[in-house]
Structure formats: C-alpha cells, structure tokens
C-alpha cells in the first residue's frame, strides 16, 4: 500500500512538472500567419470628417435596426457598438476641441468595428465553431445556426467587439463580418464604398500595409494622392499629409489585425489599449494543446486510474466478504 501511494505521488509530481513545462510550449506556439488573400480595412483617422455615412450604410447593408439613445425615437444615434450597431465613429475631444487631429484643444475620430484578428481569440474560444476565420480572406464570420450563446467570445475578445442582445428572448452574437455578402458579389464593404474621403479604405491587407508605409514616409504639409474606397481604385483625392504618430494600430497588436488604424493623435486617446505582440490565445491554447494533444495524456491517466481503482476495489470487496463471514461465524451482536 505504501508503495502504491508513493507511485501515485510520483505520477502527480510528474503531471505537475508537465504543467510547468507547458509555459515554454505556450511561447513556442507560433502566431497564426496572415492568409495570403487576406482582406481588410485601413482607417485613416486624419481623413475622417465624422460624417457618419459609413454607419448609415452599414445599417442598410446588414439590415440592422436603429439605436435610439436620445429619448426621441427618430434618429439612429448609437453611442457605441451595440447589438444593433456593427460599426461606429467615435470622437475624441480635448479642451476647446478646435483643432482637428490635435491632442491638446483638439478632436479626432476613430472607427470601431471588428478588427478581424489574424489570431482571433473568439474563434479559438467558440466551442461549436460558430465563429470561423476564412482561410483565404481571413474574414472572421459568425453562423447563428451553430451558436449556443455561451458568450465566451465576448469574454475572450480583447477589443470588446462581439455584442449580444440580452433583451431578446433568443439572441445572437452580432459583429462586423466585413460585408462578406457584398464581397461575394464583387462589391466593397458598405462603409468603404460610401466613405467620401477615403478614410475607410478597403483592400488586401498586404497592399494596405504597403500603403501605411507610404503614408508614414510622407512629408507633413506636402500634397499627396490618397485612394478612395479601395486601395486599387482609380479615384484618388489630393490632401496635405498630416503628421502621423509613428505607429499603425493593428499591425502587430496581439499578432496583428486585418483592420488597421492610422492617426495623428495617440491611440490611447481613443481608448485603444496598448497590447503586446503575442496574443492571449497562444498563451491559453498553448497550455491546452500540451495537455490534450491527441488525448494521449488523459487516456494514459485514465488507464492508470482504472487499473488502480480495480485493484483497490477488489481488495476491498474481498475484505468486506471476509468481514461478513467473520460476523456470521462469530454471531456477535
């Protein structure tokens, strides 16, 4: 009996060592690569004039109901992403708010929507593959026919994007799917096709990344061409180049995203958190993979457990039979 207990403890110590080793495994797991045909949006805050045309177009294209927030049920006035709103333009203001794209006494706009992560937490989190990432376009889309409504995607999303209408009897998860139904028809996402200034620019992520480099090398104050709607469109507008902050949000955050932001004010001003390059997904699934890969460890442990239980149980049953015999023979009580 003593030996058995020691064996058990050894096994337990072994599995603990395994857990400790997992941390290295977690780091070793490579971040998922950008799909070759990945599509995305480059949102340039300096070009955005806050007209909200993209918000209206988004509602129309996706059949989303209006959000009434001012007490009068007349205008669609979302204040943030909601179960009715997949895309929202928000404004940062400081002091008098006079100068556009200034951090002091200025204002600037930001577009919030699903960023279509390269290594999306929600897709890894979803137990029933209701959220999937397209192998070619990299678009993260949602299928309500599979969703069980557990809301782990909401907990997992580092940008708080997926929404869920708790006031509906049988709700679903709501988030931007990059208008994949329009892309399938050869069209552009609604927000990009209506954007008058080219602030929301659709295109292949690889092309968009080249574009971010071009913009960052522009001399502030000089005139440049800026494409409208899509990176490969013929329409361009001429603008004076702003002084961009030397950072493209989404290029590297948590493994990178397919929707990226450029701005002349710091991204922290928009409430966008500063993130490391490694995603939280790779940390947790690294641990999960190491333990459950091919179910080898669990099955080995199960075999060991069943073996020991069987042995101990037999001994015990034999003992109790003996005991009963003893009782009968002794006739005591």
């Amino acid at each position: 009996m003593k030996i058995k207990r020691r064996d058990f403890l050894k096994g337990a110590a072994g599995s603990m060592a395994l857990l400790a080793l997992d941390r290295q495994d977690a780091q070793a797991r490579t971040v998922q690569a950008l799909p070759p045909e990945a599509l995305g949006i480059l949102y340039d805050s300096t070009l955005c004039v806050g007209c909200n045309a993209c918000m209206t177009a988004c509602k129309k294209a996706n059949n989303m109901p209006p959000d009434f927030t001012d007490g009068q049920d007349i205008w669609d006035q979302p204040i943030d992403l909601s179960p009715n709103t997949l895309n929202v333009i928000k404004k940062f203001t400081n002091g008098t708010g006079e100068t556009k794209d200034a951090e002091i006494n200025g204002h600037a706009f930001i577009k919030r929507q699903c960023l279509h992560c390269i290594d999306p937490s929600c897709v890894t989190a979803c137990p029933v593959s209701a959220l999937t990432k397209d192998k070619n376009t990299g678009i993260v889309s949602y299928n309500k026919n599979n969703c069980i409504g557990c809301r782990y995607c909401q907990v997992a999303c580092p940008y708080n994007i997926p929404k869920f209408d708790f006031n509906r009897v049988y709700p679903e998860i709501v988030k931007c799917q990059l208008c994949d139904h329009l892309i399938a028809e050869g069209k552009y996402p609604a927000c990009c096709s209506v954007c008058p200034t080219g602030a929301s620019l659709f295109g292949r992520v690889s092309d968009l990344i080249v574009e971010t480099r071009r913009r960052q090398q522009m001399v502030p104050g000089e005139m440049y061409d800026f494409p409208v709607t899509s990176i490969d469109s013929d329409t361009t507008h001429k603008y004076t180049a702003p002084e961009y902050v030397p950072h493209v949000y989404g290029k590297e955050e948590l493994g990178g995203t397919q929707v990226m932001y450029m701005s002349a004010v710091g991204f922290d001003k928009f409430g966008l958190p500063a993130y490391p390059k490694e995603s939280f997904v790779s940390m947790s699934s690294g641990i999960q993979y190491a333990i459950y890969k091919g179910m080898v460890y669990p099955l080995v442990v199960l075999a060991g457990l069943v073996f020991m239980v069987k042995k101990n149980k037999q001994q015990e049953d034999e003992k109790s039979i003996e005991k009963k015999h003893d009782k009968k023979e002794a006739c005591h009580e």
Partner: protein
Amino acid sequence: MSEARPLGGRVFTLTFSICLIISGIALYFTAKRFIFGIGSVANLNDGYPWGIWIAYDVVVGTAFACGGYVMALLVYVINKGEYHPLVRPALLASMFGYTLAGVSVFLDIGRYFHAYNLYLPWQMNFHSVMFEVAMCIGTYILVLWLEFAPTFTEKWKLEKYRKFLDKIIFALIGLGVLLPTMHQSSLGTMMLMAGFKLDPLWHSSTLPLLFLFTAVIMGFAMVVFEATIASRVYGLGNETEMLAKISRIMSWVLGFFLVIRLQNVFMRGEMGHAFSGSFLGNMFLIENFLLIIGFVILTFLRNNLTPRLLFIAAIAILVGGSLFRFNTYIIGYDPGTGWKYFPSVGEQMITYGLIAMEIAAYTLFVKYFPVFSAHDPAVSTK
C-alpha cells in the same frame, strides 16, 4: 460493501419547507427568463457577459461539488479504505451539485436549442477550452449518477443491475477521477483568454493548477462541512477523528496551493498591487487571509482539533476558495469602457433556488436511500 442505511424520519421539516419556498421563487424567475429573455431577469451586459450564474452556479458550485471527486481519489486510487463511510454522502452532494450546475448552464446560455451542436463532431472545436469543459461536465454528471447508482440498486433490490454495475464500476470511478481533474483545471485555463481584462493578481499561467488545487481543497472542506452538519442534524455520532485525518491531507494540499499562489504573485511583481489598499488588492488579501486561517488551524492546531475548530477551518477554506474563483471570474474582471455589473434580485434568486433545491434533494435522498453508514455502533439505527 454496503453497511449504509436509509435514515428515515419526517420529510417535511422546517429546512425542507424553506428550501421548497425558495425553489418556488426561483422557478418563477426561471419562467420569466425563458419567456422574456435573459435581460428581463439578469443584469448581464456586453461588458460582463458572465455573471453569478456562471461564477457561482458553475465555477464555485462545481468546486463545492468536488467532495465526490476527492473521496473517490482518496478511497479508490490512494486506497484509503477507512474513509469509505464518507464516500456516499460526498457522492450524493456532488451529484446534485453538478447536475444543478448543468441545469444552470441551460438558463445561462442564450441559444439553448442549439446546444446539440456541442455533440456534432464536425462542429466541435477541439481548441476551445469551453468545449472541453462542456464535454467533461456533461459526461461527469452522467458518471456521477452511475457512480451513485448502487444506492438505487440496493434500495430497490435490482440484483441484475447491481451485478452489472459491479462489473463496470471501477471504470466509472476511474472516469470520475479523471473528468474533474480535467475540467476543474480547465476552468482556470478558461480565464487566461480574458487577457488584460483580468487583473494581474489573478491572470497567471498557473491558473489551471490553482483551480485544480482549489477544487481539491474545497472538495475536502465540503466533505468536512457536510459530515459535521449531517452528524449534528441526524445524530450520527462524532466523526471528528476521521475528519481530522482528512484535514491532515487538506493542510498539505492547501500548503502547496498557498506557496504556488503567493510565490507566483511575488515573481510577477504584483505584491505591491496586492498591498496597495485598492479594492482588488484587498479582495486578494481577504481571499488569501481566509485560506491561511484554514491552513493555520489545520496545520498548527492539528493535535487539538475540536469539531468546532475543524468546522471553522472548513468554512474559511470554502469561503476563501470561493472568493478566489469569484475574483477570477467577476470581481477581478474588468473589460474597460465603463461597464458595471452587480447581480439583480432575480438573478440571485435563481442561484439561491438552485442551492435550496440541492439541500432539499439531499435531505430527501438520505432519508429514502442508503447513503449514510452507521459506522459508529453506539448510534447505529435501531
């Protein structure tokens, strides 16, 4: 094997009736939730998609229900046969604890009609921690009922089934030890994905190990808690000696837990945050203070352990362990952007109702089925 006997006695006691009333109120809110939606009952929102239905009913509730797991581990795997009388009552509590956790999941998930997707092989996402937890808990509920089934076969004298069960019971017990080991640690892995939303005092890669440890110590503490109350209420005699022995094991596990927990927070340089006087820092201190009280009683007073002290230690561990889990799932969780959450009355009532149902069903079962062993001849039923 079976020296267990039904306790008999009056069913409609005061406790039982109060439990029924609370369950009734909970049923009202449950109906409301299904007719008008989650929002009509709960304060859940897009910032806090998980509230007490997950944090208490599932995460804390299943830890409370780990008594069956730890007793099976102790008796059948480590082969400590002397604790056998404690197995069945512990299994019974686990069975109800897990079953009601499973029920509460159906109240919580928004699209319950689609839950079958979990069982469609082409929909399964093997990378999802949620998937693993859902599968393990679902299977474990079934295993618990089967593990407990000998009680039914004894009561109703189903000889054929009894023999069949006897043949496979060792496999069930084996599964019954493996499954909680898997999903209790995964409940910790689950919150790793929350990333920056979870305060660094709780967000650590040791979460899976810490959750497994709390499951074990809370399981043992629950066995002590139940046995103490049951022996008082049903006059089963003094079990302190056996419980004191269990407490020795508990003090080891708890000691390991505390070393890992505190060392990890030290290493990541978060101790300053813990003692900063902030709300979360204080929650961390309370949580660990309670566990340390339990540890001190079990370790340093082990030779003078009275039933009262043991009971206090068990409660300190249960509350401290629950707080650790609450902190990880709700209190230490902040998605930013100003979201707030506090459970509504209806939400709380459903949780209280589940606890009440558990107690009512437990008291009913021990009177009808052979659960408790009259191991102490002085008080054996006449």
